[in-house]
């Protein structure tokens, strides 16, 4: 409801605009952007891709994590004009054909890896980045390497269960209270 992409907001026909070409979730885009536009603000304000969240705008919370060429970054700390030629994947680009949930998305739902859901897109993109890196093998390593993504609701143990499932290519039963 009420989502309108505003690629060129009114009143800001800036002469300083810089042309960049980048692909977002597989879609190639030619954009004229003011140089101060962060990747996060580009996604949220101009492309109406609001799945990527703003939690601090200072690279301290991880809510804005997206994948750039397969690597996880805080999109609030990246100027969009520095990404010419890059491939950006956001949470909206994670699901498969016909909207089928990505294994991480499915695992987060099964293991209740979130509560309010606000950090979730960042957690999932970060988890995919972590899987791409290939460094984390154990639960302790995942824990350490996922510590750039704050979950204020405290779903951490469930987030680990979800990521472990995907890392080990399995579908485990969610933990239950006794």
């Amino acid at each position, binding site marked *: 409801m009420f989502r309108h992409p505003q690629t060129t907001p009114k009143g800001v026909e800036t002469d300083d605009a810089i042309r960049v070409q980048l692909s977002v979730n597989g879609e190639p885009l030619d954009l004229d952007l003011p140089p101060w536009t962060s990747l996060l603000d580009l996604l949220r304000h101009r492309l109406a891709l609001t799945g990527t969240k703003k939690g601090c705008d200072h690279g301290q919370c991880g809510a804005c994590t997206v994948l750039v060429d397969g690597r996880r970054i805080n999109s609030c700390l990246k100027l969009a004009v520095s990404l010419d030629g890059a491939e950006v994947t956001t949470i*909206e680009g994670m699901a498969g054909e016909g909207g089928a949930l990505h294994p991480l998305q499915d695992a987060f739902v099964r293991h*209740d890896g979130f509560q309010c859901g606000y950090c979730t897109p960042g957690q999932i993109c970060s988890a995919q980045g972590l899987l791409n890196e290939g460094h984390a093998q154990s639960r302790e390593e995942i824990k350490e390497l996922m510590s750039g*993504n704050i979950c204020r609701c*405290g779903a951490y143990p469930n987030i680990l269960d979800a990521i472990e499932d995907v890392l080990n290519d399995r579908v485990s039963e969610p933990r*239950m209270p*006794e």
Partner: protein
Amino acid sequence: MTNLTRAGFGTPLSRVDGPAKVTGQAQYAAEFQPEDMLHAHVHTARIAKGKITRIDVSRALAVEGVVDVLTHENRPKVAWFDLKYKDMTAPLRGSPFKALYDENVIFSGQPIALVVAETPEIARYASTLLDVDYKWAEFQTDLAQVLDQAFVPRIPRAGYHKPKSRGDGEQAFSDAPVQVSNRYHLSPEHHNPLEMFASTVIWEGDGHVTISDKTQGVKNSHWYICNAMGWDRDKVRILSPFVGGAFGSGLRPQYQLYLAALAAKKLERSVQVVMTRQEMFGHGYRPECYQTVSLGADREGHLKGIVNSAVTATSSIENYMETVVNWGSMVYRCPDAKLDYKIAKVDTATPCDMRAPGGATGMNLFEVAMDELAYACDIDPLELRLRNYTDREAMKDKPYTSKALHDCYERGAAKFGWDRRSHAPRSMRDGHELIGWGMATGIWEAMMAPTSARARLSADGTLEVATATADMGPGTYTMMTQIAADTTGLPVEKITAKLGDSDLPFSPVQGGSMTAASAGTAVQKACDALLEELLEAARRIEDGPLAGVDLDEVGFGDGRIYLIDDTKIGMRFEEILAAAEMDSLEATELAKPGIINMMRKARNTHSAVFVEVRVDEDVGMARVTRVVNAVAAGRIINPKTARSQILGGVVFGIGMALEEETLADHRIGRWMNHNLAEYHVPVNADVPDIDVLFVEEQDDEVNPIGVKGVGEIGVVGTAAAIANALFHATGKRVRELPITIDKLL
């Protein structure tokens, strides 16, 4: 449809809104983006108290793309009477904060101007160009300096439970052979939900206004903003379908709602205001507390006298109060107790409820004192609690609707392996790590508040249940769906839950762990009423299979009403509507607690928390490595989401015990660590695996559906258990939370 999901009480249903949240489709307040929307950025006061003597906005206005700069000098006319700014959860006494109202500054970080521009970047940049002169006034932000000015407000806050002393606590304490008496301190904490406060005022152009707001209560925001702006209630609608955490900070309307409305009113355009993380430290917070606990006991550890007094901070403008000193006195048998609670004014924003307000503060600090008593008596800390156990609520000497705390102690201790604990401090270690095992008791309220819900059956056999509550993370959509499924027998796939819309039937704010009991009961009642109406319609269908049958002859299930004696005979819900020529059928019901019954018996959740910490002996670094939290909270609707609530509470407790504190520079009266790099909250690496145990209580009295709520109990006791484990590990008793590394070295 195949593979339909059946759910009822006790089913670990995955969140029904889960797919929306994991795909980025869940829409939070700042994600309502109407066409031609303006973005506004807040400019905050640099002084703690005084007056704005000059505010020059010309440089900001000169920036291309800036539309307006609102200040107290040019704001539109708004209500002047304090009562118009009282939201449903405001303290009864005092004058609620009014942004941009006049030249007065009453706390550092107060919003004093709003820059409105075509893009958020321009608004933010232009807000740095304001030129403001101030005249400082004398101020005080340090609670320690105003303890002697603490007072008992004549008119308490709604929901506040006045402490009740019994016997002569002071005399009993001084007569007791074993005495511990110490002062404890809790630092201020800020909620820091991950979503920043945001409001989008959508100017519809025909006198109607739709507002997306980050709030725990759309009805509260609606009430407040209509009063403050003088807007017609029927023309204003508040939406808040998803809330990115709040933990109490969204109970009161925060200033971004007021500012966005103010700008929209002046400019007659859609306006969005999103706070920055820094600004999130300029509103309500968990107040700092000094608490003195004196415990007198006999040599076997039986409590003889309790003297418990506390002072918490409030602002200069409102009397914010919490129930702080009651809890320990409610839990433990003790003939004499003297309780005393006061507040003192500091020049900050008014504090506000934060997850288990009062309980998290008062009970956690009290439970550290209990651990001190255990060591003074040389008794195991769990054994001490058992020796002072009572089935009654000891402060008011009332029976409980249910209290399975004893089972929590037993099952929690067994799961943790408490009997393998060696009692002496510093007696357990693993290499260079000192190991500490600590425990504590938790208690919280099991409230219910009047709530209306609507159930609507459509011609296609789908059901919608709706009430104007919120879902800031506990899983309210799922809970409502599950109760509707339980009541009607419909599969989950045929049910939709709606909330977070002020046009829906009344619900109070989401808080106090009361939503499941309140909205849950209302949904159940509405579904029951709907089924009765449906049966009535079926009975009136001439020649129908259910013509003239009575309620006790039929069953409901699988979307059908059927005869109990011959289940093959019956009608599908949609068949009934079709035969009765109805497009839909609807029932709205109000659920409210029985007031007399509520006064007769106490209603609380309880818990026993067991914690292991490991402390690096050389550098003092402490880690929580194991937590068992055994909770008695009535019936559990959904074990999966209920467990998550306890996890979240425990993580809050870890933050309270080890990390979270908002630090002020009292020389300038300003919070200094107002960002997530310096205000530390637990991250994944700080949190161990947490075992959650629910000790089921069958409780028909607490409320019609027998649930007590699990949103807050997880934090109460946890911080104390960690503090006690740290003493056990190190032999060092720290009486200030959080216990940061400097205090352990």
